């Protein structure tokens, strides 16, 4: 296993991005794309190896690595900041998911990206580094660094290759996330400071900060730190009052970027909530669990209702994304093994499904140059393959049994229903879950409505020439469909990766 190095996994994309961007590299679109695609494929296979050699029953970090400077010291020794990476139960899934979706996004980039190829592919690879860094860093400072680094390529990806009010959307996305990270930075510094006060050691190591939690931080400070982290992740997830960047960013981003945005970036919020808010502050999450559940239910129902009223295909998918991320919150709020497992699984499910749906939106937009429902219709006759893929994705999204969305929803509903994190009648877990269950009707309504409006019914004459999926699109969608069906039939294939971790997490909560 010597050949499995996280450093290589994380920094290889950055180096390749540099190679692509260097003036020595040929400025030919095809060469650039093939090179990037090939590299992402290798990266995906390499990350798969990590998953294979990962030992799920081991709840701590694995593949630990720390980059030392020349004098064999840590990166910023006086403040206890180190360049250390590691994988554990929740990050291993996200690492593979990231490389997988980056590969698919690059495959799907052929038609939607028409200018500045070198810059585009290198930015995507920088983004990959940032995301891999977020999920694997074992140092809070490093985590924050990657968290911010991810914004830079994202800003350019949206504002250069986007459509519509792209600068506005990109700026909104960046400012929103900055707004959230500000609170997180405050939380990180407070945490570090209080750790220093109590132990006399400056450290940003996540392990140290997580497992030495018994030192005494005043309650109010703890709550402040918790909320600081929470706001940052709430923006990213997104949670309802802080969600308005998402429709803009999704609608104006180019298709592959939308895929990555929905598929991976939103998951960073969920990852953060589990990694920091739950693992680091078990006693606070118990206090704030009712808030999580209520916000989750609001997310689910509110966004579903909004999706019902949308006239734009991409906006509909964007709001359905928000609605589905509410399930993650609901599952987390349950605070039991099954709920948190469900939340994790929902992240996977949503990543696969929404990436596919955004790809479909891109496919349709390429053919018709419109995303407004009233201009579409009857495309199923000329684009049968797209129709069947969309149907599969829509059915998976509305939680059809034996597809990936269902297992997640069942786990979350079950977890939330049987948990006791709330008491009272209206504010009981049972009532809130029942309320959230209404969403399965609304979700079905808007997704089937979407299917009907786009693919069914009478066809406009002008779409007669719309062509079916190109090989690239078909391959990308097939790649997405395989895990959707596979993990729908056999969810334990994934859950077994992080189940011991979650078990450990929940047993810590009980302390």
């Amino acid at each position: 296993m010597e050949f499995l190095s996280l450093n290589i996994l994380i920094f290889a994309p950055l180096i390749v991005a540099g190679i692509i961007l260097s003036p020595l590299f040929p400025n030919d679109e095809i060469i650039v794309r093939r090179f990037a695609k090939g590299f992402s494929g290798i990266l995906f296979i390499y990350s798969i190896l990590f998953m294979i050699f990962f030992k799920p029953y081991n709840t701590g970090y694995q593949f630990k690595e720390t980059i030392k400077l020349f004098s064999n010291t840590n990166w910023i020794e006086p403040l206890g900041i180190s360049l250390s990476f590691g994988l554990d139960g929740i990050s291993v899934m996200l690492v593979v998911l990231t490389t997988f979706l980056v590969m698919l996004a690059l495959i799907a980039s052929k038609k939607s990206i028409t200018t500045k190829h070198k810059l585009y592919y290198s930015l995507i690879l920088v983004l990959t580094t940032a995301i891999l860094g977020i999920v694997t860093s074992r140092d809070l400072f490093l985590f924050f660094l990657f968290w911010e680094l991810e914004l830079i390529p994202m800003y350019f990806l949206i504002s250069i290759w986007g459509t519509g009010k792209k600068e506005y959307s990109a700026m909104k996305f960046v400012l929103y996330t900055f707004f959230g990270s500000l609170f997180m930075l405050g939380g990180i510094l407070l945490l570090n400071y209080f750790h220093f006060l109590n132990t006399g050691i400056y450290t940003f190591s996540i392990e140290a900060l997580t497992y030495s939690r018994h030192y005494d931080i005043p309650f109010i400070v703890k709550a402040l730190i918790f909320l600081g982290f929470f706001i940052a992740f709430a923006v990213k997830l997104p949670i309802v009052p802080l969600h308005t960047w998402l429709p803009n960013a999704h609608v104006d981003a180019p298709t592959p970027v939308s895929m990555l945005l929905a598929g991976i970036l939103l998951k960073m919020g969920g990852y953060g909530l589990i990694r920091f808010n739950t693992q680091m502050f078990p006693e606070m999450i118990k206090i704030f669990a009712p808030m999580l559940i209520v916000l989750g239910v609001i997310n689910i129902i509110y966004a579903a209702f909004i999706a019902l009223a949308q006239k734009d295909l991409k906006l509909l998918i964007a709001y359905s994304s928000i609605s589905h991320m509410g399930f993650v919150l609901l599952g987390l709020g349950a605070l039991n093994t099954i709920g948190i497992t469900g939340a994790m699984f929902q992240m996977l499910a949503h990543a696969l499904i929404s990436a596919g749906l955004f790809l479909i939106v891109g496919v349709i937009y390429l053919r018709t140059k419109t995303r407004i429902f009233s201009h579409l219709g009857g495309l199923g006759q000329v684009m049968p393959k797209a129709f069947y893929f969309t149907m599969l994705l829509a059915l998976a999204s509305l939680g059809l049994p034996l597809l990936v969305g269902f297992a997640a929803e069942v786990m979350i509903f079950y977890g939330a229903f049987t948990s006791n994190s709330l008491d009272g009648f209206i504010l009981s877990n049972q009532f809130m879950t029942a309320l959230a269950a209404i969403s399965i009707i609304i979700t079905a309504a808007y997704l089937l409505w979407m299917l009907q409006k786009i693919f069914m019914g009478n066809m406009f004459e002008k779409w007669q020439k719309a062509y079916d999926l190109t090989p690239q699109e078909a391959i990308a969608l097939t790649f997405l469909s395989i895990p959707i069906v596979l993990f729908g039939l056999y969810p334990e294939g994934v859950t077994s990766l992080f189940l011991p971790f979650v078990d450990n997490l929940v047993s810590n909560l009980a302390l």
Partner: protein
Amino acid sequence: MEFFINNVWIIPALPLWSFLLILFGRIFNVYENKYISLALTAGSTFIGFISSIFILFYCINNPETSTQYNILWLDTGNLKFSIGWLVDNLAAMMLVVVTSISLLIQIYSHGYMEQDKGYHRFFAYLVLFNFSMLALVLSTNLFQTYIFWELVGVSSYLLIGFWFYKPSAAQAAKKAFIINRIGDCGLLVGTLALLFYSLNWWTSSQNILLEFATLGQAGSLALANAGPVLFGLLALGLLFGPIAKSAQIPLHTWLADAMEGPTPISALIHAATMVAAGVYLIARLYPVFELSPQIMTIMVWVGAITAFIAATIAITQTDIKKCLAYSTCSQLGYMVLAMGVGAYSAGLFHLITHAYFKAMLFLCSGAVIHSLADQQNMKYMGGLRKKIPIVAYTYLIGTLAIAGLFLSGFWSKEAILLSLYIQGKNLLLIIALITAFMTAYYMFRSYFMVFEGEYRGHAHFHKPSKIMTVPLIILAVPSALIGFIFSGSLKSIGIGSFDSFIFYGHALHEAHVSLFLPICSLIIATLGFLLAGIIYWDKLKSLYCNCFKLVEKYFSPLYKLSTNKWYFDDFNNLLIKYLILPISELISIFDKYVIDGFINLCGISTLYKGKAVSLLQNGNIQTYLVTALLSFIAIITVVFLIYII
């Protein structure tokens, strides 16, 4: 026979394999031949049918046994959901019904769909439905039922929307799925609640979670934990599933629209099997429902009202498939009514007889529609008995059966009426009898309008092929006889009555049999037949003395009510148009202008703040000086204040 019992998984697995074979065969263009799809579909069902027959015989011989086998599907935390198969008398019976009807309908479909572009797609969907339905029938626990419950729903969605380029079909498919989702939502919440209130029992007793075999004990525990009110809500949630699936009021409107699908689908899914799954689930959940008398009352009245209202609607329908659809709805109401009053066996008996004769009726109507080039309106039919006698006579058999005139429907309906009579529920009995009268009336009306008199249409007529008529003839046999066979009259040759085979609790032994009720219902059915004949049959039209016009004149509001289907659809549309959509629009506007508006306001206000500050930079050096001094003074003041404090 043990072999079939132990390998019962073959029955649903074969259709699944066929589905995958057709799917991948079509994706990779392995074959073009239509017979391969047909062979895969019908072959898998045929093997299933044979095994089901063996299983049924095994169950008849060993009536008290039930076999189940489970595989752990999801094992996370304390959640251990299993999928498996359960074979008991009820399942065995249902297996035979489902496989036999499916088989015949698949053969029939070949004739019906031969010219269609989507032939392979049709069979793929069909076989997918078969898989889901069989797995639903065999499910061992409520959770598995839920999974396949939704899968049959989605197969139904796919098949209703088979001709997706027709806007009405697309609309109907969506409607069917969404209304079924309402039921699913209730079922899901009910399941979760049941599980929640009896969780400790399940975990301590090491049973399969939510398995049907021990649902009674869990249910009573849940009742103790939850109290009667919450338990009632729970059971109501569970009841929502069957209400939606079996098209009971108020969630019945999808069934009539579902007739947009190809007619074999209407026969298979929307008459014989899937809609009956609601009643089947009620039977499976009987131990839970039984614990809450209020829910039983609700069930009774839902059934009774559905039976009555659907029958009144069927009276005036001119579309032959819609007429049959409302008839299905009405008959399902009978079954639910029977389940509600505790006539468990009678309800299921009616389910089975109804499955056969209604499937046959739909297939007949399909043959008629097919031969008249997709003409569905009965006003443009007539006199078809001379052209397609086989279809006409089989339709007549079905009509007699459903009207309760001696053929199979008579026996099962009689059992329901009898249990109402025994329990002294006179009001319900009267409703049921009125419904029976209307049933006879509208069925004979449709028969007369289609097959008797003169041909009123213009469409070119062409004879249906043999592959379509042979299944009709085969289906006519059980339609006619199955009631009699299982009525208990043949006990002497070893075939016991239905309620000694499938029962709840303990077998009902001969209650006192009076001849009053059968005669009464026969008279009522005959009256319906006569009324229909008077109005619609040429040979009896001499008796027609303007009474129809009188009816139309004096009962026109009622007539309107009936043709407009009691305004349920309009009500639903109004509800959606003026409640749901405005709410979502409102929330959307709120989101766009209030929440996002607030955020943008923050952004814009920053811009204006910047502008305001930049006013200071007007180029006048004195302004800069003032600003600098003010800042200096502010800083000094703060420093001073800090020192003072």
